[in-house]
């Protein structure tokens, strides 16, 4: 039995689905952010696995950029959560429906 890239694809799919479930199921904005990070990570794992499969370093460089964008996204997103919590005393996304007619 040899570990092929298919095993990594399966693991990445499993992690991505758990992340997607987290976004759909949980109502806490912080946990939704964490689930998005989990999905980004599963994509990164796939990039590194295929970089190994094809002996191509470009995949690892892309992971580097994804990491940077994720860091910027988390900083802005968490600041948004803090501002919303200060104004509305809640980070439950079901409570955020000011724009509903």
């Amino acid at each position, binding site marked *: 039995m040899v570990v092929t890239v298919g095993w990594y694809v399966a693991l990445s*799919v499993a992690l991505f689905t758990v992340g*997607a479930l987290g976004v759909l199921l*949980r109502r806490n904005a912080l946990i939704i952010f964490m689930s998005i990070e989990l999905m980004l990570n599963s994509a990164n794992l796939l990039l590194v696995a295929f970089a190994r499969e094809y002996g191509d370093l470009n995949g*690892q*460089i892309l992971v580097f950029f994804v990491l940077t964008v994720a860091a910027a996204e988390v900083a802005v997103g968490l600041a948004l*959560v803090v501002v919303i919590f200060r104004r509305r005393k809640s980070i439950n996304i079901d409570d955020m429906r000011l724009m509903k007619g």
Partner: protein
Amino acid sequence: MGQPVVFIALALVAILSAFGMLLSHNAVHAALFLVLNFITIGVFYIVLAAPFIAMVQITVYAGAIMVLFLFVIMLLGAERLEGAQNVPNTAWQRPLAVFLAAVLVLAFGYLIIQEAVSATGTALPPLDSSPQAIGELLFGSYIFPFEVTAVLLLVSMISLVVWKAQDKRG
């Protein structure tokens, strides 16, 4: 790409910690499960001959980003904020979410099985993933995206400062 035993053990830890993140009621526990998940994925990177990415993963993701999460959770005292107080009936969302996730898994699984029939464990090509090789690529052909990343980080930093200034005024 690693021994099957190593892969299965690490994959179990990764998937179980992801489910722990999904199901835990306390946001601090969820964050700590996610740290475990990130570290496991970092070990996968080492198995996949990407030591530099593994170290970046542990310092940036498991270190900086998750510390930021924990800091915000504890700053807000938001460990147990769940369950909407005054929201009309949203019970139908839960089965729908599970159904959509099942559809996602089935669609991906179909593609994987279709591809896996033709996949064989061929010999892996050599890969030089030393920090020197990554640096030469990053500052060589990827120099423009690298500069754009710097602008992105600057923009996010400026936006935070502007927000803070408006928050004090308003």
